[in-house]
């Protein structure tokens, strides 16, 4: 095993690394897919003359191409608002958002940004357009003017990728919530995006549907797609490589999930719970067992117990 130590970070796009076993220094450059610079946003005030509250208050982020990032936070922390900035559904009131090298504020780029950065929403019912599954998956490619024969290929591939190919002729109202959500993912995949933003995709699903969706999300990440998962389930956040905690429209925490979940006190402050495995590990530790720090997934915990 070769270990690298981060010696220095140049801004957020490159790092100086040191490898102890081979005694070399290397500079690693990250390619960021989404960059936010001091993004501010406020919704129009509900009451006249009341100062609008800032939903986003100076957020700067860099999301690396191919990474799996979870964004968590309590209700009203601005996580959905943030998600809608990634594909120009909302435009920043201050600062700028750059997606794949394009500014979201440039109207010329809006559609290319939305093609490259797809989005799956929370409610499985309210995001399907057509009463036939395959027609719905074709909706995105049709909108961007893909050739009919190519659309057919894309639709078949995407439906197979989410395991819904055999249901392609059905009406969405005959499917379960999890299946509908899989169709919604296929609809995004058919546009061949580089990045997919999931805005609480499992919030309205039963446990089985939730498991299916998470499996698909992990598979997409392994294929090299950038995945951004907005969630309030800590179990889901634990699957990511990086967790961003939002609090009152600001980034409160931005690190690997094992770092976050080893600080129970801090989590309490952000009104977030521990994932089951992490709280279990903590209780076992309190009983004197030496559960390693950073045990946050059920697999990790099972590995420790079976050892």
């Amino acid at each position: 095993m070769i270990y690298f130590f981060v010696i220095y970070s140049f801004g957020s796009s490159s790092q100086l690394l040191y490898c102890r076993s081979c005694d070399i220094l290397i500079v690693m450059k990250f390619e960021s897919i989404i960059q936010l610079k001091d993004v501010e946003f406020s919704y129009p005030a509900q009451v006249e003359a009341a100062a609008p509250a800032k939903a986003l208050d100076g957020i700067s982020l860099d999301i690396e191409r191919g990474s799996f990032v979870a964004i968590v936070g309590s209700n009203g922390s601005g996580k959905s608002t943030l998600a809608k900035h990634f594909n120009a559904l909302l435009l920043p009131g201050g600062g700028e958002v750059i997606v794949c090298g394009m500014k979201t504020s440039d109207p010329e780029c809006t559609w290319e940004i939305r093609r490259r950065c797809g989005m799956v929403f929370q409610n499985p019912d309210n995001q399907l357009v057509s009463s036939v599954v395959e027609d719905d998956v074709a909706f995105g490619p049709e909108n961007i003017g893909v050739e009919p024969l190519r659309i057919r290929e894309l639709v078949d591939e995407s439906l197979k990728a989410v395991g819904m190919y055999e249901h392609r002729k059905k009406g969405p109202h005959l499917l379960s919530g999890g299946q509908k959500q899989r169709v919604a993912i296929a609809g995004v995949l058919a546009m061949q995006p580089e990045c997919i933003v999931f805005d609480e995709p499992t919030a309205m699903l039963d446990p089985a549907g939730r498991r299916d969706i998470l499996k698909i999300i992990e598979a997409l990440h392994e294929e090299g797609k950038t995945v951004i998962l907005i969630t309030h389930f800590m179990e889901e956040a634990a699957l990511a490589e990086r967790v961003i905690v939002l609090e009152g429209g600001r980034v409160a925490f931005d690190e690997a999930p094992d770092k976050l979940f080893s600080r129970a006190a801090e989590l309490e402050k952000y009104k977030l719970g521990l994932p089951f495995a992490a709280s279990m590990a903590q209780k076992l530790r309190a009983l004197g067992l030496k559960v390693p720090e950073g045990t946050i997934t059920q697999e990790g915990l099972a590995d420790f117990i079976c050892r």
Partner: protein
Amino acid sequence: MAIKDITLGQYFPGESAVHSLDPRTKLIGTVIFIASLFVVDSFGGFAVCALCLLAVVKLSGVPLRFLMRGLRAVLILIIFTAAINLFMTPGVEVWRLGFIKVTEEGIYRSAFMAIRLVLLILGSSMLTLTTKPVTLTDGLERLFRPFGKLGLPAHELAMMMTIALRFIPTLLDETDRIMKAQMARGADFESGNLRERARGLIPLLVPLFVSAFRIAADLAMAMEARCYRGGEGRTRMNAVEFGKGDYAAFALCAMMLAFAILSRKLNWF
């Protein structure tokens, strides 16, 4: 209450030659059939129209029994029309009871109108029985696209129909849910006179409207996220093209219309 069990439209699934015709062909064909029914002025002509229709029905594989079911909904209309014609036509009296009289001309006309209505309804049900609502919408969009220059928003209308079809089951579900929620709070939808019942619907309709608007807002956002920006520059996966079958169907329809016109002009029957 099983509101959800309502079947939408009356599509009869199948793979027949009629099913696989272009929706535009079927739309135009239906219009021609209806036009022929109005051109024809004799029972003999109706017999020919009925035979043509029967041939199409056999070809499509839709059971006759299924087709006849479509008549049930309009039975009252047919009986009413026939009755009016029967009693109100002046002419040679055949039978009389008080002020009600039946004339020879009345019998003829009422039979004539009833047959015309029945054929009309059966003919147009064949369109909806062999064409999915979604395909029909596509056909309408393509058919009316040339009128876009005259300001007819063909794509927008078709998209509205598509979305309406998609969300009918969702809204039915929602209605069911709200009804149950309101009944749990003591709302009463089933007793009282008409006026009271209508008032009782208010606690159902208000939340239903609110929820419909919420769904519309969600859907609009999801559509925008998937690059929807109107009909311009849009392609279709199932681009409908006329095939051999369509041309054959057009030829048959043209023959039928020609026959109807000739039979009237030359008094064949």
